[in-house]
């Protein structure tokens, strides 16, 4: 039976509704600010299941205004929005940012959310510069306002695989077999398709994949999968993973005393992240990942790293470099276009972005130039190996900080 405090309840409800309506309607009075500042709306998953990477990318957005001011002399203002790892929220937040006067959008790490935002951007005629998202479809829709400075899944796979070939050449080792384990999510699936397509053509990769073992990203226990992989007696483990399962897997390998030539990841996240080295200690060493990466020797990298150290004195740049690099570059693209266009008019900005040609970069690859589909071709990956608990670039040689070690020391040939 309802308690008889109807007055309180109703008051509560009315107050709540009024407050809600007020706060929701309030900002509609905001006039679009004109003037010499570029407003960049940054959409990232800072809560929800993608929070870790989202917050990492956010660090790149936070330091951008200061670095860009000193580089280009333009003023930019960052307006942040949390997509909450959720496509509904991503869409409304994008609309909201545009309403608040954002001249250009940057985001959003997750392919699904990025597609939703891209539609809004295209509809409203506001340029979107994608910082990180690998689904090829994002730049296949014929959009005029969507730009991406990040390799598509196909390019990612090809780059990652050819780096494996370079690795074998550099260390003079030719493994004959590999067991391929992959997490059954977007990344894993894209990688698998790419590997199937690319592997037969890459002749410097003479190894055969003897077994493919997909696993559930939510799996708490990977002992079965590792047992299966160990039973194949393959020369090395080709692994596509996420952070948490990478840690669980490596631990299982130790527990089950499985020591192949090494663990090589063609480019998914996980191995190069901070928690991997922290959780595994010495067992993280010698694991290899080939993600798109930043150039540790580039001038711009030093500048960004200095700004990062100022704001995050307790953090290690190397673990965030990739996320920061691409997020920063996305904002850089917007600022650079703003400088050339000389206005915040979205169409002018979009045209300026289309004509971008930035050679002074932080990330590995050729100059930032968009093709007809709004995609940058020529972004490169690096072969990153954990040495002494820190990820170090070992290939390509012009960006290398150390020499690759393969097979890893604890491997005993059978």
């Amino acid at each position, binding site marked *: 039976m309802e308690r008889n405090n109807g007055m309180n309840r109703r008051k509560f409800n009315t107050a709540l509704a009024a407050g809600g309506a007020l706060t929701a309607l309030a900002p509609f009075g905001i006039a679009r600010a004109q003037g010499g500042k570029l407003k960049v709306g940054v959409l990232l998953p800072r809560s*929800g299941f993608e929070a870790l990477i989202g917050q990492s990318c956010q660090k790149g957005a936070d330091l951008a205004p200061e670095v860009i001011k000193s580089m280009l002399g333009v003023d930019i203002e960052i307006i942040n929005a949390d997509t909450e790892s959720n496509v509904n929220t991503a869409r409304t937040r994008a609309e909201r940012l545009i309403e608040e006067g954002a001249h250009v959008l940057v985001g959003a790490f997750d392919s699904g959310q990025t597609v939703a935002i891209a539609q809004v951007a295209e509809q409203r005629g506001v340029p979107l510069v994608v910082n990180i998202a690998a689904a090829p479809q994002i730049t296949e829709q014929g959009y005029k306002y969507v730009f991406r400075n990040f390799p598509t899944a196909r390019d990612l796979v090809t780059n990652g695989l050819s780096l494996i070939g370079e690795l074998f050449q550099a260390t003079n080792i030719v493994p004959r077999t590999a067991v391929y384990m992959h997490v059954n999510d977007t990344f894993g699936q894209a990688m698998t398709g790419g590997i199937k397509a690319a592997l037969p053509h890459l002749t410097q990769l003479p190894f055969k994949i003897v077994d493919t073992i997909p696993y*559930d990203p939510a*799996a*708490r*226990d990977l002992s*079965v999968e590792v047992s299966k992989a160990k039973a194949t007696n393959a020369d090395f483990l080709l692994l596509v993973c996420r952070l948490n399962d990478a840690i669980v897997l490596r631990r299982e390998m130790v527990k089950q005393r499985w020591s192949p030539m090494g663990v090589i990841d063609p480019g998914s996240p996980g191995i190069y992240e901070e928690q991997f080295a922290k959780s595994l200690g010495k067992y993280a060493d010698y694991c290899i990942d080939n993600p798109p990466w930043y150039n540790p020797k580039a001038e711009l990298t030093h500048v960004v790293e200095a700004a990062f150290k100022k704001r995050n004195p307790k953090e290690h740049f190397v673990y965030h470099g990739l996320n920061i690099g691409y997020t920063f570059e996305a904002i850089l693209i917007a600022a650079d276009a703003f400088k050339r266009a000389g206005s915040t008019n979205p169409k002018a900005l979009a045209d300026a972005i289309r004509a971008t040609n930035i050679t002074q970069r932080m990330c590995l690859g050729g100059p930032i130039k968009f093709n007809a589909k709004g995609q940058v071709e020529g972004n490169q990956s690096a072969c990153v190996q954990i040495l002494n608990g820190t990820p170090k670039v070992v290939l390509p040689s012009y960006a290398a900080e150390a020499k690759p070690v393969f097979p890893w020391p604890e491997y005993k040939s059978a």
Partner: protein
Amino acid sequence: MSASLIANVVIAGVLTGLVYGLMALGLSVIFGVVRVVNFAHGEMMTIAMYAAVLLFGAFKLDPLLAALPVAALFFGLGYALQAGLINPFITRPEHSQFILLVAVATILTNVLLMVFGPDARNVQTDYMLDSWAIGQVLFDKARVFAALAALATAAGLFTFFRYSRTGTAIRACADNHLGALIVGLNVKHLYALTFGLGAACVAVAGCIMTLLVEVAPSVGPGYTLLGFVIVIVGGLGSMLGALLGGVLIGVSEALAGLFIDPSAKSMFSFGLLILVLLLRPQGLLGRKP
């Protein structure tokens, strides 16, 4: 597919299954007695895991030892939660209970996110990566200790419910609520006690679990679902059923992963849940609902 491979997989399944069983035990006790569908169960376990991680970080306290103070704490919290918040909801319709606990779960998960951030944490005891080998068969040390701790806790709980006066009183409440009231049992207190015990149980499970997995704010819901699958399969209200259910799920998932597709092994568990719900809702050892 060698015999040693199958043996290894089954053993790992049994050991891990026992820990899952302990977690489900807490749920079974709560559901079986208080009749509340605790959809915040996984989140409660997550908090216990964080507690174990913190204690390890601060005092290098082995999670198996940390389980004692954490369990005591959770007993008190569980008691308070039941007496304070949940009690009025026992007679409410299920969807209200569900939303209440979903709200609690949301709050807990996001407070954890705010306090600890999204990074996964873990403990690193010395023996965590060791294993004993008997021929080709490997016994993971951490898993063995975890399983033993789970069994010990379950045994303790079982003894309490079977042989102590309070335990008997609680079982009476569960069997016949009205009868218990008539006989003069303080049902409200007993319910709160039970919830406290269930919470303590899941706290121990959480501490043990840190030996095996990492903890992040988002791991809760997965464990809640797992808990329900085990409780249904094992049988509501049966403690042995919860343990057996845990082992069954652990082994069947392991075997499904071995012989079929590892990424679809959860499908197997849900399929099993569907079959059990339809054909034998009382599960392996439960009473007929």
